[in-house]
């Protein structure tokens, strides 16, 4: 098996490789797109400064935020199959975003984000009420609960769409996920929420490790479990809400990224969280570059691309864990 030193070395290597890959992906991604240009032309064009660069940066921020949120939910609920999308938190947040658009709150810089946060948090509270026993989410109840909430919320969103024809395009955008509308203001907002959120999560990484061994055990080893749980759920949901508000529902990032990362660096959240942030950023950047350049001039919804990668992987995970359900 793996000794602590091997794992630490692997963690450093992983971080270096991920950083190099992300930089490369950004460089290559900047050249991809409908308008083909040389580097010198590109650096002088608005296409780079106003479209491609903010879009790439938003992809990085959203990817990092979703991946770290996934790892956070997994630690708090002690269930490795948890993800903001499967829990229904992402759809919950999308409902808030839809309501905000209908109420005309889009002009306010935080309007959509805060409404998404409110409904996202409400979803988390509902999940805890329904599905957790002794602070732990059982896989079966978790999945049923998430599916039901998602179905219910998409029904409500459909109602809202029918009743508000004029805003239908904007609302569809939230349900499918897209980075098309990325602007510098989004980058600033989501970027700062992601950086602050991830920093707070790192601060509590050790507590999350202890909580994975059971809340009573963690409490007996000096973790204020209730406080950490509330704080982490609040911060993760905040990150999910602002990610959803900026680019809609993008599923499975929070599931596949921490899972793959754990296979390489082990279970220690002090390594899993930073590596997930980088890997999530890279994954979403790659997916978005593929989404906008594979079938030009049409663009694939990025949410369906991540689902196409994530859902089969999720099924493999369930298959491998069948005994433990």
């Amino acid at each position, binding site marked *: *098996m*793996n*000794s*602590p030193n091997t794992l630490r070395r692997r963690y450093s290597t992983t971080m270096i490789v991920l950083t190099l890959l992300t930089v490369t992906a950004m460089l290559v991604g900047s050249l991809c797109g409908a308008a083909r240009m040389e580097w010198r032309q590109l650096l002088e064009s608005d296409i780079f400064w106003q479209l491609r660069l903010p879009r790439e940066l938003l992809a990085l921020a959203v990817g990092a935020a979703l991946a770290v949120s996934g790892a956070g939910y997994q630690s708090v609920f*002690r*269930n*490795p199959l948890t993800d903001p999308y499967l829990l229904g938190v992402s759809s919950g947040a999308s409902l808030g975003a839809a309501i905000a658009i209908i109420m005309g709150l889009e002009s306010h810089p935080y309007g959509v984000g805060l409404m998404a946060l409110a409904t996202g948090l409400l979803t988390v509270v509902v999940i805890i009420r329904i599905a957790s026993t002794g602070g*732990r989410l059982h896989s079966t109840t978790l999945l049923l609960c998430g599916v039901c909430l998602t179905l219910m919320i998409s029904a409500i969103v459909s109602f809202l769409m029918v009743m508000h024809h004029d805003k239908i395009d904007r609302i569809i955008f939230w349900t499918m996920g897209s980075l098309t509308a990325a602007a510098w203001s989004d980058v600033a907002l989501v970027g700062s929420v992601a950086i602050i959120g991830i920093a707070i999560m790192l*601060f509590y990484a*050790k*507590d999350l*490790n*202890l909580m*994975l*061994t*059971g809340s*009573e*055990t963690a*409490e*007996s*080893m*000096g*973790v*204020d479990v209730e406080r950490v749980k509330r704080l982490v759920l609040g911060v993760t949901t905040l990150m999910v809400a602002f990610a959803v508000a900026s680019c809609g529902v993008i599923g499975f990032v929070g599931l596949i990224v921490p899972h793959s990362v*754990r296979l390489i660096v*082990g*279970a*220690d959240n002090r390594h899993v969280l930073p590596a997930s942030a980088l890997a999530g950023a890279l994954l979403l950047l790659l997916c978005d570059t593929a989404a906008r350049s594979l079938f030009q001039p049409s663009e694939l919804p990025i949410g369906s691309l991540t689902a196409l990668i994530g859902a089969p992987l999720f099924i493999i995970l369930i298959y491998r*864990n069948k005994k*433990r359900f």
Partner: protein
Amino acid sequence: MLQTLHLSHGYDNHTVLNDLNITIEDGGFYAVMGANGCGKTTLLHCLGGLIRPNQGHVTIAGTDIAALSTRQRAKQIALVCQQQYDDFDFTAYDIVMMARNAYQRRLSHESVADRAIVEQAMRDTATWHLRDRVPRTMSGGERQRTMIARALAQQTPTILLDEPLSNLDIAHQIEIMELLTAINQQEHKTILIVLHDLPMAYHYCPSLLLIDHGSADYIGPMREGLTTQRIERVFGVSTTINESKLTLTYK
């Protein structure tokens, strides 16, 4: 010295612990016994400060446990719970190192001293060779010894264990009891262990805390307390006791 004063606790309308007044002597090795649902686990959680009781107090050396911070409490009492969870693969070494949490600053990594303490705890429990393994791949006995190593690394004067023998075969049960006896005698730690096995408790534990319907039926020396009449009344089974051979058998 661990004490409870008029300790009462319940869930909804159901009383679990009812006006419990007990004193746990320093350096004692207590078997906590009683029928299912009599309040043993709730008592352990109250003593460990995990539950704030509805009424009454738990004190450590005269200080109310509710007045201690979570970290301060973690330096006084270690707890080995029943539940074990293996979906996340921490190595045995990582798990034992977690016990050092209360002594570490939040963002700092483990110190040389932490590492020495963890190694010593794992050597004392014969788990050092398992350090790179994950609990999922261990036998029940190895897993339980790892949990005891963790409690040792927490360096508390008191260790509480909730049914550590369940799911173990008899050889491993004896191994764990021998280990706890050694910890109690050599390191003078106070040990409270929830047990169901009367003969095992009678043989190994010098003291008994017998809980019946949420009240302390008896606390004191095992030999004087565990009589055939009392066992008959609390558990409803007949036994014979051979005091000279330290054995208790079911009729």
